[in-house]
């Protein structure tokens, strides 16, 4: 046992390893961010045409003059507006051209997606980068490189079986990355909720099964299953779906949700994703293990992991335009 301890101390003492590990991690983080920024950057110009901006500005000038003429006819308050707006627009529009890209879009669906991507990529990407760097630096570790497992699965398998580097009689020193990996694997097995940045990646719900009923209705078949997985009242989710989609529907005998209107699976998926962000994840630790409580008309989300508590807004349908034949009858 004393030998093992020595090995460990040696492995940790290798500062080069440590630095490498850190560098790789930070690189990974920046690239992930860069990627997301790039995505936003791509999106922004699509709607953000310089030519379009010019067009936008021109008509407004015209409008200003128009309004200047009209001002006497209208109320005093409205006469003020164009000027106020105009000032703000001309200044901010330019300033935001630069900022808009950097800010990116606030899109809850992306918020959920991003961490997934980055966390998924990390383990493999880290490994490769790490080994590449090792090779570049020409460290001694290169010698046992062929024996070292390449993929995450192999590492895990070796760990579980106690073979390879982890064998009792193995004399090669542990590498920092291996020990770190072992730590995270063990941590994840014993306490999944504690394992660092992998909180969101482990949260999965079955994808919504959507079928069409007739021409105008969609069926959301596995809603009860999803509700059970999320530990939420199905009614609450249904309410949210209807409010988001601006439609209505009913629940049939088998617990399936019948939604009026045509909806595809990915559309419902994005709605569910928004529901998860808004009503499921804890605001502090981002864990989805929460309960929704109602206290004198207010909804609260209590986190079962960190014990924090946040209030969430009740689901509001908001404005509903009257659509269809009934419009004429009502009016």
């Amino acid at each position, binding site marked *: 046992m004393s030998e093992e301890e020595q090995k460990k101390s040696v492995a940790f003492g290798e500062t080069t390893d*440590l630095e490498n590990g*850190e560098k790789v*991690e930070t690189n990974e983080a920046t690239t992930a961010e860069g990627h997301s920024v790039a995505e936003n950057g791509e999106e922004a110009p699509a*709607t*953000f045409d310089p030519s*379009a*901006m010019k*067009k*936008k*500005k021109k*008509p*407004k000038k015209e*409008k200003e003059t128009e*309004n200047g003429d009209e001002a006497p006819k209208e109320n005093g308050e*409205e006469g003020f*507006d*164009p000027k*106020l*707006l105009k000032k*703000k*627009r001309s200044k*901010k*529009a330019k300033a*935001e051209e630069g900022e*808009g890209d950097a*800010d990116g*879009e*606030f899109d809850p669906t992306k918020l959920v997606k991003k961490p997934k991507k980055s966390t998924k990529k990390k383990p493999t990407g880290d490994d490769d980068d790490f080994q590449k760097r090792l090779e570049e630096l020409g460290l001694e570790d290169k010698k046992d490189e062929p024996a070292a497992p390449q993929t995450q699965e192999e590492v895990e398998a070796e760990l579980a079986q106690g073979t390879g580097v982890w064998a009792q009689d193995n004399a090669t020193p542990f590498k920092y990355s291996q020990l770190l990996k072992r730590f995270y694997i063990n941590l994840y097995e014993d306490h999944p909720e504690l394992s*660092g*940045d992998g909180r969101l990646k482990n949260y999965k719900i079955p994808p919504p099964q959507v079928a069409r009923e007739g021409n105008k209705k969609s069926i959301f078949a596995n809603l009860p299953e999803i509700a059970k997985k999320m530990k939420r009242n199905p009614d609450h989710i249904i309410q949210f779906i209807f*409010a*988001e*989609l*601006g*439609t209505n529907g009913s629940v049939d005998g088998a617990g399936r949700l019948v939604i009026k*209107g*045509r*909806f*595809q699976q*990915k*559309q*419902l998926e*994005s*709605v569910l994703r928004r529901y998860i962000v808004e009503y499921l994840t804890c*605001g*502090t*630790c*981002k864990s989805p293990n929460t309960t929704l409580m109602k206290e004198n008309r207010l909804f609260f989300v209590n986190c079962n992991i960190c014990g924090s508590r*946040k209030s969430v*807004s009740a689901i509001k349908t*908001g*404005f*509903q*335009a009257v*659509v*269809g034949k009934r419009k004429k009858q009502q009016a």
Partner: protein
Amino acid sequence: MSLENLKSFDPFAETDGGDDKKDYIHIRIQQRNGRKTLTTVQGLPKEIDPKRVLKFAKKEFATNGSIVDDPELGEVIQLQGDQRQKISELMVNSMDINRNNIKIHGF
């Protein structure tokens, strides 16, 4: 040496959406018959004249629209078709509205 995995989240930072909860601008979509849709913009700030926004949006997006006076929610802009992204871009870029105050609903 800094602890990498403890840096990820600052529990004492302001939660996003903590302050600006008051006036969201809701952009919604509704399905009409067939493939047709309707975009509604609810909760425009008072200092913005919905008439002018509508007039501009109609020309810019090459679509029709109208203003509906709702007894509870005030004036609501209705546009034909799915104009959610376009109208939100317009509001952010030229009407000095923070992106965080806009909520886009629907699928």
